[in-house]
Each structure stands twice: as structure tokens, then as C-alpha cells.
């Protein structure tokens, strides 16, 4: 144990002092925020087309509530809901139907043909906002907080959750891949330096491999913690600066009463209330878990690649199959967001190779699946078993591979080495 921890220490310290690590650690959050703000900024440049919204107001309470906005034209019908519905289905130009039941006996329902989540969110917040405005003026005799809006055609998508999903995916992919590559490069370096034979005459090959993998893992965690600390600090500062607490559910009514821009207030409320509703500790804790477990799983495979290569150029044939499950999971992200508890999502979170990414996508949507925590536990178990398996495989191939020089290595050799006796 003493030897392993000493190896870990060297692997860690020799990398943490590198300029490239410091650069990446402190520039990373900046690059990330630019990456995240970029699409938002572009989206704002877009000229949204005009959408027609049919209001089936059986309560007749909302007579003058829905005035047209720049993008939304409202058509109000006090007829029976059934008629409005058939009109909605018959007219392609009508995108959305809002059903307000008489006496507000049940929830206000919104049906939309669009499956564009940004558009849906916009409709939802506009409808909500119109209702709020009139409530504040005392024109609607109900408590706004009791109005619930239920969307039928689209899973209750939420941009904040989606952003969190994508952030989780990008971070996990980035960490697993970059740090996995570092393991591979470290192994190749030891091999091409010819230090490896000296090392394994002193320590077991397995200890050398594990020392390297764990040392680099700690490096990744260091980077993540600095990132999380920096981003948390920046977010906290900004949140205080903009007094975001004003838009929480608790303070929203007071804030609206003070005459803030309602559009902005509603947007901010969604952001703040979503963040409040999320179990951030669960998400961050799970991220750390899936980073470590996923990295260990792939790190062991990258160690195999390193041990079978004399130089970086030999590695392509082996790296490609390693990246396939990671890339496939990243590509599936939109599908999983649209149906975070569907069959695809469930199956992929039980496969150790895709689980780290897919589970990160699903985490922000945990509240809409009562069995999610069981599935999370299952996903964690599968990744743990996965890395035990890959580490075992790696230890058998690595010990032979590191002493092989100047050969062209193919999969056949890897299998042969696996079965070599000690």
C-alpha cells in the first residue's frame, strides 16, 4: 500500500505542476461559460416567427387577458372546448391550444403541435405571465399560485434541466476522455523512456498501473473541484449582484408588485425555481461518482492501449473502438433528454460503457420517475462491475505489453497476452 501511494504521489505531483494543467484549470471555466453563453446569445439574434395560439376560455374570466405579443397572436374562443379542439386540429396555422376550464375547476392545459422546447417554454411563460399581470391588478379572483399549467404534447421540458444535462455530458465526456488519454500517454512515456522494466523489478506491474490511474484520477478531481469552486463562486457573486433571490417562488409576488419587467421576472423565476427544485448535491455527487468510476473503467482500457504501443502514432487503431461507446452516448443525448426514462435511456444506463454519460443526462429529470433512485443505484453498480472487469483485463495485458518493443501489435496479440501465465 505504501508503495502504491508513493507511486500515486509521483504521478499526481508530476502532472499537477505542469503549466498546461494550470492553464486548463483556470481557463476552463471561462471557456465553458463562453461555450454556454454563445448559443443563448445566438438564440436572441433569431427572429422568431409569429405563432397563433387558440384560447378556449370556458371560465370567461380571461376576456382581456391575452393581448398579442411580438411573436404570439391569441385567438380567444368562449365556445365549448370540444369545438376549439377540432378547430385546433384542423388548422395547421394554429400551433397551440390553451384550455381554461370553467371556474378553473381543473388545471389549465396547454397543447402544442410544436415539439420545440424553447417555443413551448415561451408559450408557457407567456400564458403564465398574462395571468399574473391580471391577478396583480385584481382582475382575476384567484390566487395565481394555484393555477397549474399542464402541457400535454411535450414532456415537461425545461431549458434549465437540459442545460444541466448537456453540461454533465460534456464534462463527463471531457474528463473521461482527456484523463484516459493521459493514462495512455503516461504508459507510453514509461515504455519509450525504457524506465518501465526498472520500475517493475521494484514494484508489481499492477501497482505501477493502478498508481498511475489513481494519480491521474486525483488530478482530474483536483481540476473538477477547482472548476466547481470557481464556477460556484462566480455564480454566487452574479446571483447576489442581480439579487436573484427576488425571483424565487417565495418572493416573486412581492417582486412583481414592485413593478419589475414581467417577462424577465417570469424567466428568472423559472431558472431560480428549477435550480431550487433540483437536488444539486445529488447531481454533483453523482457526477463525481460517475467521473471516478467511468474514468477507472476507460482509464484501464487506455492503459492497455498504452502498453501495446511504442509511440503515440500506434494508438489510433485501439483508441477508435474505445471512443465509440462514449461518442454514441453523447450522440444519443437529445433522444434521452426528450424521453429521459424511456427504454433507450434505461438500457444505456445499465451498460457500463455508456452509463456514466447517459445517467448524467437523466439526473436533472430525476423527479419525474419514482423509481429513478433504484435505477441510479443499478447504473452505479454496473459501472463498478465494469471497471473491476476492465481493470482485471488491463492488469493481465499490461504486464506483458509493457515489455514488448518493436512489434506490430494487433488484437490477436492482446488476447494472447491476456492468457499468458505469470
Amino acid at each position, binding site marked *: 500500500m505504501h508503495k502504491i501511494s508513493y507511486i500515486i504521489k509521483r504521478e499526481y505531483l508530476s502532472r499537477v505542476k505542469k503549466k498546461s494543467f494550470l492553464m486548463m484549470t483556470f481557463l476552463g471555466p471561462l471557456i465553458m461559460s463562453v461555450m454556454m453563453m454563445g448559443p443563448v446569445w445566438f438564440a436572441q439574434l433569431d427572429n422568431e416567427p409569429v405563432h397563433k395560439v387558440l384560447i378556449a376560455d370556458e371560465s370567461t374570466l380571461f376576456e382581456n387577458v391575452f393581448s398579442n405579443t411580438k411573436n404570439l397572436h391569441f385567438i380567444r374562443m368562449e365556445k365549448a372546448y370540444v369545438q376549439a379542439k377540432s378547430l385546433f386540429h384542423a388548422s395547421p396555422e394554429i400551433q397551440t391550444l390553451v384550455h381554461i376550464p370553467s371556474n378553473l375547476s381543473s388545471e389549465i392545459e396547454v397543447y402544442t403541435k410544436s415539439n420545440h422546447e424553447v417555443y413551448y417554454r415561451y408559450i408557457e411563460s407567456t400564458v403564465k405571465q398574462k395571468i399574473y399581470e391580471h391577478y396583480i391588478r385584481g382582475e382575476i379572483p384567484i390566487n395565481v399560485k394555484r393555477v397549474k399549467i399542464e402541457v400535454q404534447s411535450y414532456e415537461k421540458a425545461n431549458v434549465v434541466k437540459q442545460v444541466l444535462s448537456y453540461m454533465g455530458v460534456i464534462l463527463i465526456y471531457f474528463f473521461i476522455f482527456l484523463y484516459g488519454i493521459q493514462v495512455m500517454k503516461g504508459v507510453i512515456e514509461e515504455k519509450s*523512456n*525504457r524506465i518501465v*522494466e526498472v520500475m517493475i*523489478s521494484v*514494484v508489481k506491474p499492477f501497482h505501477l498501473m493502478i498508481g498511475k490511474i489513481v494519480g491521474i484520477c486525483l488530478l482530474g478531481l483536483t481540476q473538477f473541484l477547482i472548476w466547481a469552486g470557481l464556477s460556484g463562486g462566480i455564480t454566487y457573486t452574479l446571483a447576489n449582484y442581480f439579487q436573484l433571490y427576488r425571483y424565487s417562488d417565495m418572493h416573486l409576488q412581492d417582486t412583481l408588485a414592485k413593478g419589475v419587467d414581467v417577462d424577465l421576472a417570469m424567466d428568472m423565476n423559472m431558472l431560480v425555481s428549477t435550480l431550487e427544485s433540483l437536488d444539486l448535491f445529488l447531481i454533483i455527487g453523482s457526477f463525481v461518482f460517475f467521473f471516478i468510476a467511468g474514468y477507472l473503467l476507460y482509464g484501464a482500457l487506455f492503459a492497455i492501449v498504452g502498453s501495446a504501443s511504442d509511440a503515440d502514432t500506434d494508438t489510433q487503431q485501439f483508441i477508435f473502438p474505445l471512443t465509440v461507446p462514449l461518442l454514441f452516448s453523447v450522440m444519443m443525448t437529445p433522444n434521452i433528454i426528450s424521453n429521459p426514462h424511456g427504454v433507450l435511456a434505461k438500457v444505456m444506463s445499465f451498460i457500463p460503457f455508456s452509463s456514466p454519460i447517459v445517467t448524467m443526462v437523466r439526473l436533472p429529470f430525476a423527479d419525474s420517475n419514482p423509481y429513478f433512485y433504484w435505477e441510479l443505484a443499478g447504473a452505479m453498480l454496473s459501472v463498478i462491475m465494469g471497471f473491476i472487469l476492465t481493470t482485471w483485463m488491463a492488469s493481465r495485458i499490461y504486464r506483458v505489453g509493457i515489455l514488448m518493443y518493436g512489434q506490430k501489435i494487433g488484437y490477436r496479440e492482446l488476447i494472447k497476452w491476456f492468457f*499468458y501465465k505469470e
Partner: protein
Amino acid sequence: MLSIKNVTKYYGEHRALGDVSFDVPTGCVYGLLGHNGAGKTTLIRMITQITAPDSGQIFIDGERLVRKHIPMIGYLPEERGLYKKMTVKEHLIYLAVLRGISKKEALEKISYWLEKMSIADRENTPIEGLSKGMQQKIQFIATVLHDPKLLILDEPFSGFDPVNVAIVKQEILALKKKGTTIIFSTHRMESVEELCDEITIINRSQNVLSGRIDKIKEDHRQAIYTVKIKADKVNIPFVKVLKERKRNGVLRLDLMVEEGTEITSNALLMELMKYGEIVSFKEKLPSINDIFLKHVKPELNAQD
């Protein structure tokens, strides 16, 4: 010190070592000779426990070789290197601590050895900033820093410049004097006679010859004598003249007593004295190189 008993190792179908046995006595320099690919490195990797024999055993000081013996061994592999980014001191401490020495003790030994190899001023230089010769010195220091009882050097002089070869040879002999047992593996014979007390020749994964160098030479003597004599011609029955050269009235001869003839050197000398005045008379023993070639030659075509 070290006892190799019937060691066999296969890599897949390929036999790397077949039933090899020999003993290395304490405090000697033991030569392990063989062509590239003969199985020397495989054997060394078993002594250093990088790999294990398929069958057969290795004993060290009478005990079955296990991992607790690793700190007793110092190993300089043929393929050797250093962590280029670490400083000389960091690198030496790292390996020493992994071998179970305390950091404090390591530091003392490091300054002793750096001083001895006259590179003390470089202890904080990153290894990539050292000349190749200095790096070789560091490799040697890293191997002996923990005072191993058994030192294994695999082709220690390959790539060394002549100055370092001389320094390392001197250190090898100094360590031997201190009681260190040294296994010296090579396919080049030049240094063997100079350094080794005993040898084993491995050819095509098998032990073809083991023993003390003087004994082996004795066994391989071919009754060849080098003679300088003031004479014009020498003609003795049962004695073949292999080489004949005349300079300033002195005849230089290489004589071989024909097989099947028992003749002592005294008797031969008496015969020679009849022809003229003897200037010098010496039995010519075969060199290790001759012996090596004799034992591996029949197989030479199968190599490489």
C-alpha cells in the same frame, strides 16, 4: 547465493528457457553469456520476479524466491531509462523509497554516490538536461543505491562511452570486494575475462556450459603452446606446427600436440631444447570467446 533449478518458461508455443540450472556463489561476478534471444533476459526477469517460471524453482540464500527479496536485488536492465522530467535527486529518491529505504537514508547515499561519480553539482538538474554519459551514471547509481546483495547487470556497457565503461568496471569490482554478488549478462565477450569468476553459457534456451572460468579454460585446453626459440626449423613427431614466423633469428611457433598423444609440457620442452635456445615457452589457453563460439557455433545458423 542464488540457485536456479530446472527452470523452464514458455511464451505461448515458443520455449524461452528449457530446464536451466546453475548456482551463483556469494561474492562472485557471474557471467551469463549468450546470443540475443538465447534466453538470458527471460532468466533475469525471473530472478527479478518480473515473470515467473512455468516449472522449476529459484532459491536465494536457500529460501524460495518471493517478493520480500526484491529489496536485496539491484537490476540494471538492457532496456533502461529514467523519468526525464524529474530531477536527479527526485528520481533517485523515488526508486530508493520504492525499494524500501527511508528518504533520509536515501539522501545520504545519493550524495555519497553523486560525489563518487563526480556529478554532485547536478543533483537538482532535470534528467532531460543531462548528457547521455551522465544519465548512464544516474542509471547505475539508481541500481546500486540501496546496497543490493545481488546486482544484476544486463548488457551494462551497451551504449556506454569508454570513460563510463572504465568507471563502472571499477565500481563492479569494488562492490564485489564488499561482498556483493554480481550477475553480468552479455553477448560480448571482451569484458567477461576481465570481470567474471564464473560463467554460464545459454544457447537456444538451454544451459550449455557452467563453471569457473579457470576450470572451463582448463577443460578446454587444446595443448597448444606458444614458443619462441632461436632455431631455424622445429620438427617433432606428434606435434603440429600451427603458425610459424621468424623475426631477427627468433622463431615464433604455435604448436599443437596431436590428439591421442600424452606429452607433458616438460617433455615437450626437452624436445624443443634440442633445436636451440628457448626464449619463451607458454601454454596458450583458449579465450572465453573461443569457448563461447565453440559451444554456440553449431546452432549459429538457427539464430537471428
